[in-house]
């Protein structure tokens, strides 16, 4: 059992790694030229080039993938003797990178060709002093210095360089003489919980993605917990009565639900119950962050929409599984033993019949997540699905990647749980 678990865990880890690579590759192809998006279509090639360097986009794709995955500080640390650390900004709470020089948090910036060291005291106050002679001589004979700048990059300054470097500030790109010549954007990598900054909001992705995920989890969880017993019961009913009227009704209803897209069901639910009849809130407008708890009614229609889509699928699989089990020799054997029909169904058939749906249902989590996107967009729920949709339409790489990784993680995790559950319920594997 432990071995089985570890094996699955390992496989899950590999899957996640592959997913991250696939995602990275897709978004790499997808993103187009980020610099165009950030600088507009009128930026000169030189400006774009400069921005590309500042964003670290000049590094090869595999390098960026590793940075994104596991962080770039390993790599950056080799350039500088000062330990690189992150420290939250006292005002915003967002983490920033610092170099530790003589036990003091330090960053540098260039002013009029001279390096200024900005130090932060333990009390959180910042002081600036001239950096002094920190320069080292490289192979080409230039005086260079690697240090952390205010934008969380490790940058290489070249002393006395009269090369004009284009530097991106919030106001746009301006030219700076003796500016940084090489950048390593510092990040911890998604494996260490740093999903980077959202291009759209310019805030850390991780600060929003989890609260969004929580909303989605409540939505999807409620739908899942409500639809499963329902669909299983109806699926079993249909399977036991295979070919009879009840079976037909359940099957056709289920198929109808499955074949009708969520958005259609949702739109009509809104129209009928939200607007014409006014029985239920038409949308899930979150007037406060805890709107779900204050007014759970807003979730009724979204949950119903998700349930409708799931119901057909789960009941259908359960039905098929139940019908198959009812045909199996050991069920016939049970009947031949004179065991009453109820006991045959509940004691003999049910357990075996539910094994197949468990794995399939857990695979369906994926599908549920897909439905969640539509439902969230439709009902205006600030969940992960809507977040992905917004980020994808904007082309917000970090946000899409982090949110997609999160959904994939949930999907893989539920599959793992499904496998474990299957193993647990199936004595043939449990006592193998």
């Amino acid at each position, binding site marked *: 059992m432990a071995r089985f678990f570890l094996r699955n865990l390992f*496989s899950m880890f590999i899957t996640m790694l592959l997913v991250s690579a696939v995602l990275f590759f897709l978004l790499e192809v997808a993103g187009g030229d980020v610099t165009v998006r950030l600088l507009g279509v009128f930026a000169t090639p030189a400006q774009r080039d400069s921005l590309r360097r500042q964003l670290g986009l000049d590094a090869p794709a595999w390098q960026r993938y590793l940075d994104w995955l596991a962080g770039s500080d390993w790599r950056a640390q080799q350039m500088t003797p000062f330990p690189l650390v992150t420290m939250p900004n006292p005002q915003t709470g967002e983490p920033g990178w610092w170099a530790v020089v003589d036990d003091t948090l330090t960053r540098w910036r260039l002013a009029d060709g001279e390096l200024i060291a900005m130090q932060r005291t333990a009390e959180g106050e910042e002081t600036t002093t001239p950096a002094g002679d920190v320069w080292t001589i490289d192979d080409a004979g230039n005086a260079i210095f690697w240090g952390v700048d205010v934008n969380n990059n490790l940058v290489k300054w070249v002393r006395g360089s009269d090369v004009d470097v284009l530097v991106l500030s919030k106001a746009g790109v301006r030219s700076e003489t003796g500016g940084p010549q090489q950048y390593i954007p510092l990040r911890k990598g998604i494996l260490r919980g740093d999903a980077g900054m959202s291009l759209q909001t310019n805030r850390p992705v991780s600060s929003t993605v989890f609260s969004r995920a929580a909303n989605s989890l409540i939505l999807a969880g409620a739908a899942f917990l409500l639809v499963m017993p329902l669909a299983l019961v109806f699926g079993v009913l249909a399977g036991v009565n295979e070919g009879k009227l009840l079976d037909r009704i359940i099957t056709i209803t289920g198929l109808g639900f499955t*074949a009708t*897209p969520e958005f259609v069901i949702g739109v009509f639910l809104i129209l009928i119950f939200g607007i014409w009849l006014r029985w239920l809130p038409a949308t899930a407008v979150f007037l406060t962050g805890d709107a779900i708890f204050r007014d759970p009614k807003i979730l009724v229609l979204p949950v119903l929409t998700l349930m409708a889509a799931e119901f057909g699928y789960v009941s259908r699989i359960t039905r098929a599984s139940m019908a198959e089990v009812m045909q199996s020799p050991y069920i016939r054997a049970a009947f031949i033993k004179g065991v009453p029909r109820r006991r045959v169904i509940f004691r003999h058939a049910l357990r075996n019949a539910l094994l197949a749906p468990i794995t399939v249902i857990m695979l369906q989590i994926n599908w549920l*997540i897909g*439905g969640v*996107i*539509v439902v969230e967009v439709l009902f205006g729920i600030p969940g992960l699905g809507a977040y*992905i949709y917004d980020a994808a339409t904007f082309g917000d790489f970090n946000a899409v990647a982090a949110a997609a990784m999160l959904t994939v993680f949930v999907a893989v995790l539920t599959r793992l749980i499904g496998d474990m559950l299957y193993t647990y319920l199936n004595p043939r594997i449990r006592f193998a």
Partner: protein
Amino acid sequence: MTTTTAPPELESQPGRLNRLREALAIVFSSRTAVVGLAIVIFWLAIGVISLFWTPYPPNAQLFDPNLPPSAVNVMGTDHLGRDTWSRIMAGTQVVLLKTRLATDPRVVIPGGVAIWGVIGAVLVGGLLGVNAGYRGGAADQVIMQVLDAFIAFPVIVLYLVIVTALGRGDVIVILAITVTGAPGVARLVRGLTMDIKTHDYIRAAETRGESKWYVMLWETLPNARGPILVDAMLRVGYAIFAIGTLGFLGLGLPPPDPDWGSMVNDARKYIYSNPLAILWPSLAIATLVIGVNLFADGLREEITRYQR
């Protein structure tokens, strides 16, 4: 040559005819399949007819916008004053009958987006699956691990990423359907292959020293075609569904040629003044998906019965 030996072509004819008759017999012995087929054929016919005739040109704005159904417009008109029924009819084309190549919207190849998407998924998934299943071992593990990664993606997320990555267009949607469908097909084909692999005729081919590709393509796959066909049919259903969902999210096929999902999306804005406008394309999607599902279900039941 004496007359006693008939030419081989003539002799093989009855065989082929028999197979056709058998296939039809399979379909017609299941009521479910017949109902499903009828629905599918209905839509196919509608689509084919729409190639030559629709009550009004589907993109022509001949009427007032958002009219209710009437004798003139059996399903009313849309927000641009176009005849909804004509557009529903023409909407069948892009799903089932024609694909517009992205480079020039006027260049069209036969076969709808859903069809090509599924064909792509079946080809890619089939090849991967048969290799994984037949070769086994490391090849199997690598292929399945990669496919697992793709399966782990919620389908719509993958669609979103692909469509935002590559833009809109029929070919992109085909690609998206292929990428999202292939892992499922591969799993199926792998399972089938592992089953077929145990049959002695595979041993027989191997002991003839046939190449792995011959065994996979000529000995294995032809025997998996029943379940693959059924699966492909179901996938056409998913694809229609997915095209609709993409259309709803505003990422669907480019206008102005109607596709049902985008029609739903357009009509959604006018649902309060013209709720029927959203009902018609929804019904079209739902019935076609139901038809395809019923057909596939019936076929599957019959094929299993037949194989027993």
